[in-house]
């Protein structure tokens, strides 16, 4: 059913720290690896070894330069489904394939009902949904719904694959609907923001902004090379002779 639940029991989502993300793409490959065998399997690739490789990915890491008052920094920015509170991708779906779960707020696609009209991908401002041309249906991040409740995995592994893979601890998973949860406290402490709030989709995921520049770092990596002055002595004599 594509009508949205009035309230979800939990609001599971991700908190992504733009301060510590190093853009290593580990979350990207780990996501692809897990999900090509998971709930939305397969995540097909087109011409993977050719010149025009393309394929379905749920997580993509962009790199930006953020310049404020003449000082700029590089920011790596992982982009994936934000599991919005009011996801238009769900309400526009004509078949009921897209839905938002009342129990945990995860937005999912039922691959057996999707007709591949692509309207949901047009309705998503974040580019979270990607069409699988091989299977003919739309695919998207499942928040690793097949990991987080999976009792066959060890408890510490019951997090999304991207979170498990992140080597710099830039990805956090939890209930953002519960103000006392560690992720909610992290968002409160670091001033986490929602993306494109002006469009009114009320995303669940939060992004922690890079910390302010401390100014402690060296201003210049190494002094510029200077021309060699008159050394004097024997080497000074050699210098003068060779400079003739």
């Amino acid at each position, binding site marked *: 059913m*594509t*009508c*949205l639940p009035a309230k979800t029991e939990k609001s599971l989502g991700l908190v992504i720290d*733009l301060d510590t993300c190093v853009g290593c*793409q580990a979350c*990207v490959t780990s996501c692809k690896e897990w999900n090509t065998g998971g709930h939305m399997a397969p995540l097909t690739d087109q011409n993977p070894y050719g*010149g*025009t*490789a*393309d*394929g*379905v990915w749920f997580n*993509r890491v*962009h*790199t*930006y*330069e*953020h*310049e*404020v008052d003449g000082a700029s920094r590089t*920011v790596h*920015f992982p*982009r994936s489904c934000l599991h919005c509170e009011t996801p*238009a991708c*769900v*309400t*526009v*779906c*004509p*078949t*009921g394939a897209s839905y938002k779960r009342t129990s945990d707020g995860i937005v999912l696609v039922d691959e057996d009902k*999707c*007709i*591949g*009209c*692509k*309207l949901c*991908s*047009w*309705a*998503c*401002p*974040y*580019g979270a949904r*990607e*069409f699988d*041309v091989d299977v*003919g*249906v*739309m695919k998207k991040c499942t928040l690793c719904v097949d990991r987080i409740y999976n009792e066959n995995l060890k408890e510490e592994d019951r997090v999304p694959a991207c979170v498990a893979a992140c080597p710099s601890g830039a990805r956090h998973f939890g209930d953002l609907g519960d103000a006392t949860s560690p992720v909610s406290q992290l968002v409160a402490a670091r001033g986490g*923001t*929602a*993306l*494109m709030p*002006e*469009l*009114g*989709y009320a995303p669940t995921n939060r*992004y922690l*902004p890079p910390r302010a520049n401390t100014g402690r770092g060296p201003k210049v990596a190494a002094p510029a090379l200077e021309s060699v002055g008159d050394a004097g002595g024997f080497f000074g004599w050699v210098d003068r002779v060779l400079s003739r």
Partner: protein
Amino acid sequence: MHPAYSVIVFTTATGAGYGLLALLGLLAATGATPPSLVPGLVSFGLAFALIGGGLLSSTGHLGRPERAWRAFSQWRSSWLSREGVAAVVTFVPAGLLALGWAVMGRSGAWIAICGLLAAACAVVTVCSTAMIYASLKPIAQWHSRFTLPSYLLFAATSGLVLLNALMQVFGRPSVPWLAAALVFTALAWVLKVAVWRHNDALGMPATLNSATGLKGGTVRSVEWPHTEDNYLLKEMGYRVARKHAARLRLIAVILAFALPGALLVIALLLRGGPAAAFVSVLAAASQLAGLMVERWLFFAEAKHTVTLYYGRD
């Protein structure tokens, strides 16, 4: 946005078909004498062919067209589903109207009711089609107060021009209907130019700052996540037609409005006869071709917020 041929054909053909159907419904409802068998069959046949062909075409861009029947289920939330339901429901009064009024030559209360219902259903269907696009917030050019009136006016205009062509071909020219076709063509021209001017001044509904949560200063894309175009860039980042937008707009204006307008004036001056019928048919054909170009631009000139992430705006 990537303009799928199937969707261009779908919106243009069903628009003209529902426009013509609504006019036939109004003709029947106002107590106009039933057309004789052949003109009636041809008129309803044309309307049904445009509607049916357009609807069939719309399944052409589906990944799994065999499941298209599922699209009738979510009418509570989805304009696409409502459009599908309205399209099917329209066939009921329209079919009865075609049978009773055009084929059996009846008139009376139930014909009038069927005519009004068919016209109302046609209007609802065109509104639903427009709302599919008008409800999409990430695309400012579509999420605009112009989208719904545009779809309605273009449907009415192409329906009127088709109706005039049919009347001329079957030797029943009507000056009021011809004049209406001419006036609506002019109105559609004015509206389209106004929409283009409005769209040219539109910005994105968000910025790369708000899209990344990075506040203040400037954000510049320095590296994409992938080297080749992916689905998002192929579908949402389509830019081919934008390159030729000025020329395509001129072609659309000439084919959809200027040429049909001139041909309709000639038809008006000719006051019926085979020559007037010929130019009326030509006007309808030209307008449909022009509206296809207009629709191509409607898609191709629409910019989606996801392109912000790729440093395109």
